[in-house]
């Protein structure tokens, strides 16, 4: 242990603790901008500088360890001056039109500027003139970037994709896409983790709210919205509402208020996915020698882009089942269109997803099986949906609860857990067990696949089918480790769930942003709690799904199911694919 004094408070912390963390332990907050604990401790912004007795120069507190007897001042006159100068320097290269920025009110730089009472301009404005590219699901706005390098580090250290890099040297150094590519040319998975870790508005999703407003305004369009499982755990964070109050049903009211004709639940499609994917797994498992192993889940578009870009030899291992969003779109523009007697070309399907990669998924050219139009027209992130609520001045605190519309609105506990790491596996095993044995396992049989660990393994025995070796990974860095181990033959599994974002969709790149906080676990727990409280916790017991099979698909893996609910991932290419 090391004892030192910070602002005249005596602090005792373990050796190797940074000055910043030591100060935090006694509730002394040192301002930071670039700092991201364990990920980006590079002392780039120089706002966390402190004065140390006996040292001629100021010292950044985020990357320097405490020492015995150190005397630290976090707010000396020199520190105050230096912080203000450095903040003003950052502002000189920052587009300060905050009113037009989606991060206004949730921006680290804006907060610091306000905290430090920085009025007027001291420096010549120095903005870049190069144009920004708004075509991809992930958008970077150059003149908002503070070059904190968090995006570079998240992409390197957590996701292992090395998309963002520091470009050039000298005064014009900028963050950009490395290896002489543009984002469109790159193998970016569009996971959006760079967005949720950006302290300012430099990285964000492509805003597609305009297309949704247009559709809502078009009297010819029947507008349908589906909401992904993980959205319900996070949508009301902006309003500081407890998830127990801010239920999915309250969100339904808000969406109805906006004017959607039908508010459905992606959870319905998640149950459907389990029926297809679970059946597919059993088909493969009972005809082992005809398939490549392991089978991978295919509901995460970041993961789909990852496999195709990084491990193309494993594309055949992916389940052919579409993601729940994809299945929903296809069902909405076929079965449901028939049911309500509407030309599917007049149906406009909007998805609200915790995800930016879903924007790329709905643009996959072969996801048009229902009527030739894209099965899903627009994907909004959770953040965009909240922005639309705000635009309508909807106050969820005063909205009633309301049921999802029928028939694509009912779901089970097995569906809602799709939004947390391990959930798809858990749900699939519940139904696979039933499909083999004809009996339900207790719903909490497969707890070994739950939890925040990045790479989980378990073996479960299904009577009559034998032991099933499963693995669950989240985060693409963990995924690459698993894939390398698979390739090297160090591990082998039957069924693997992969989610591109750490913690699964709950921590997705389209979720609300809380600087410096990782909320995947908290939101995941909300979803597991919903599952526990559901009357029905098995996908194969979703009455409306069974009715859909009865009326339309006949049975899982039927000819029509193959046409509408399955897809061929080899029919589209990553930019890096030949």
């Amino acid at each position, binding site marked *: 242990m090391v004892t030192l004094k910070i602002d005249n408070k005596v602090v005792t912390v373990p050796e190797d603790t940074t000055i910043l963390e030591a100060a935090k332990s006694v509730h002394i907050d040192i301002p930071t901008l670039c700092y991201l604990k364990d990920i980006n*401790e*590079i*002392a780039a912004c120089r706002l966390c500088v402190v004065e140390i007795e006996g040292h*001629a120069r100021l*010292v950044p507190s985020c990357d320097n*360890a405490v020492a015995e007897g150190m005397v630290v001042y976090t707010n000396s006159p020199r520190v105050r001056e230096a912080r203000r100068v450095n903040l003003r320097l950052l502002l000189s290269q920052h587009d300060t039109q905050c009113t037009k920025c989606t991060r206004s009110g949730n921006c680290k730089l804006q907060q610091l500027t306000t905290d430090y009472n920085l009025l007027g301009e001291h420096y010549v404005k120095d903005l870049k003139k190069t144009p920004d590219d708004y075509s991809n699901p992930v958008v970077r706005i150059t003149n908002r970037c503070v070059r904190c390098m968090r995006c570079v580090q998240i992409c390197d250290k957590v996701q292992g994709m090395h998309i963002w890099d*520091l470009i050039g*040297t000298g005064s*014009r150094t900028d963050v950009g896409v490395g290896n*002489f590519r543009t984002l469109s040319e790159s193998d970016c998975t569009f996971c959006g983790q760079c967005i949720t870790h950006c302290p300012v508005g430099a990285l964000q999703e492509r805003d597609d709210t305009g297309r949704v407003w247009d559709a809502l305004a078009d009297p010819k369009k029947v507008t349908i919205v589906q909401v992904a499982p993980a959205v319900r755990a996070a949508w009301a964070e902006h309003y500081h509402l407890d998830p127990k109050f801010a239920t999915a049903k309250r969100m339904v009211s808000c969406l109805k208020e906006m004017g959607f004709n039908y508010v459905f639940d992606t959870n319905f499609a998640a149950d459907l996915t389990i029926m297809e994917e679970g059946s597919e797994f059993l088909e493969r498992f009972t005809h082992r020698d005809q398939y490549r192993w392991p089978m991978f889940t295919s509901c995460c578009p970041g993961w789909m882009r990852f496999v195709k870009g990084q491990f193309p030899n494993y594309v055949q291992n992916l389940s052919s089942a579409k993601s729940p969003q994809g299945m929903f779109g296809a069902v909405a523009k076929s079965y449901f269109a028939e049911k309500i007697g509407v030309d599917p070309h007049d149906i406009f399907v909007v998805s609200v997803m915790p995800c930016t990669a879903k924007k790329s998924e709905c643009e996959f050219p072969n996801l048009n099986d229902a009527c030739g139009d894209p099965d899903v027209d627009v994907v909004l992130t959770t953040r965009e949906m909240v922005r639309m609520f705000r635009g309508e001045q909807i106050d969820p605190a005063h909205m009633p609860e309301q049921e999802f519309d029928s028939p694509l609105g009912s779901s089970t506990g097995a569906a809602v857990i799709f939004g947390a790491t391990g959930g798809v596996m858990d749900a699939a095993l519940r139904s696979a067990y039933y499909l083999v044995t004809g009996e339900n396992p207790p719903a909490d049989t497969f707890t070994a696949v739950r939890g925040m660990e990045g790479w989980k393994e378990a073996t479960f025995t299904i009577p009559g089918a034998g032991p099933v070796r499963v693995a669950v990974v989240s985060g693409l860095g963990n995924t690459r480790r698993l894939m390398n181990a698979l390739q090297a033959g160090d591990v082998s599994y039957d069924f693997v769930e992969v989610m591109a974002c750490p913690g699964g969709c709950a921590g997705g790149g389209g979720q609300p942003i809380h600087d410096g906080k990782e909320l995947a676990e908290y939101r995941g727990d909300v979803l597991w709690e919903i599952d526990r409280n559901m009357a029905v916790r098995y996908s194969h017991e979703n009455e409306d799904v069974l009715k859909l099979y009865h009326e339309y698909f006949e049975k899982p893996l039927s000819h029509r199911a193959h046409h509408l609910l399955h897809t061929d991932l080899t029919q589209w290419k990553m930019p890096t694919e030949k």
Partner: protein
Amino acid sequence: MSRLDIKMPSKAQTTVENLYKDMERRIAASPPGLCPVDMSLTFLQLSHAQTCGKCVPCRIGLGQLTKLIAQVLDGEATMETIDIIEKTARSIVNTADCAIGRDAARLVLDGLEGFRDDYEEHVQHHRCLASLQTPVPCVSLCPAGVDIPGYMALVHRGRYADAVRLIRKDNPMPVACAYICEHPCEARCRRGMIDDALNIRGVKRYAVDHSGLVPNTPNAPATGKKVAIIGGGPSGLSCAYYLARMGHSATIFEKHKKLGGMLRYGIPAYRFPREKLDGEIESILSVGIEVHTNVNVGTDITFDTLREEFDCIYIAIGAHTDKKTGIPGEDSKNVMSAVEMLGAIGDDEMPDFTGKHVAVIGGGNVAMDVTRSAIRLGAEKVTCAYRRRTADMTALPDEVLGAIAEGAEVMSLAAPVRIEADENGVARALWVQPQLIGEMDKAGRPRPNNAKMEPVRIPADIIVVAIGQGIEMAGFEQSGVPVKHGGTFVAELSGQVGNMENVFAGGDCVTGPATAIRAIAAGKVAAANIDEYLGFHHEINEDVDIPNPELNNRPPHGRIDTTEVEACQRKCNFEDIEIGLTEEGVIAETARCLRCDHFGFGIFKGGRVEKW
């Protein structure tokens, strides 16, 4: 008003003079990998500030050039901009009145020729081809990529054995490099921006002198693969060392009596004591390497036989043949080559030069080794004749000064023209033609031309030619190993030899005579790629925990140099001439390290490669 004043610099002038010196050091310490266009622009702005303002091309033209190049960097230029830059710079070169304008514009033209692709990348894609691939200057300039900040920190804490282990991760010859490395790592040391580069080699020498015997990390399990290494010099030894650690069976075939290559048969013992060399070789062989000395591949065993018997081959035969001057009388008795002379010394067969007059031809490090060895062999007078000026010698300045201090005559601007022999064909004198230094060649070295003066006779009983070495191609060329025009083997940067799939080559035999550390690095690279070729991916790492840096708060401090044994004493024997740093010296010197692995770019882009 006085009629004349004594010139005294103003305070401003004195300050600016100091800033010039600071900038000189700063430019010298530029990190490798900077944007060349940006640097051009910056140099141009500096040049523009030097203009007196009289003439149009310099006063206005340099300013317009800076604006145009800034447009390129700001992504506001078109391809036509590059043409305008070129035309303008050409015009300034053609019309400026003095060197200030002319040479400023010439820098721009040189840049357009040397890195036009980078200009174009900026214009077309708004980005730069350059990048700081390795964030730590010393590490990026070390051919073997040794973790220098890491071992500076370890030595600072007195952890000498750990320092040796850390160095061995990338370079299995820490002792050799501690004594004789040319330390390219020091060239861009960021400490130079404050005061002077760190004495990295001196620190390493302290570490190896005080580490005691450091056992090697155990080898990976045996793979059953066999690799033949032809040549037991630094490159071959390094390759064999890493291959053995990866679990492969490595066998060295060495033509000489002993291992060590040029470390033994080129570098004199006073620079690298033999017991140190032997200790290093012993340490390398301790990982389990089979050695066959006195075997010449090509005559004793054919290259093709080796290719059949082994899974892979690494050719690292060095550059051990001598080059001839071609002057009349070169075949006289008592005319020898540096390779012959130093080779014999390497096998402890000391020629007796007692009382002799020795003339040495050449101006490189080998010429200095010969000169200083000749003094130690008892020569009465040693004269080193060199065509260009002393300043143009390729030998390290310290070597030249050391030789002069030991009593050698360095005769510069003296081109050897013939060797005079007596009736028995025994050399009696070297005749040299005085030279006048002339225009620069393309590489920036001035050409010597015959001066209008009479040739000069240097009486000499023994004449040693030290003008470079060549490579013994016999035995390899006919087996299909590709050879370049200049007389070296052709190999890729991976060490792979053209179309011969199980053959790799590296070291002096590929690069031509170069440094030990480049040969060591080539051995390391070859070992990694041979491992991959054999179907493995063994990783080399050392479990050494690097101390955290201390606070980055370091006032300017002089560099602490090693010293030498005084000349009159050292010139009488072949004992080590260098006096290493003291403990207090090494602590102060390692404290000067700025820890670029942590501060600056290092902490962001990883100042450390932990394994390869």
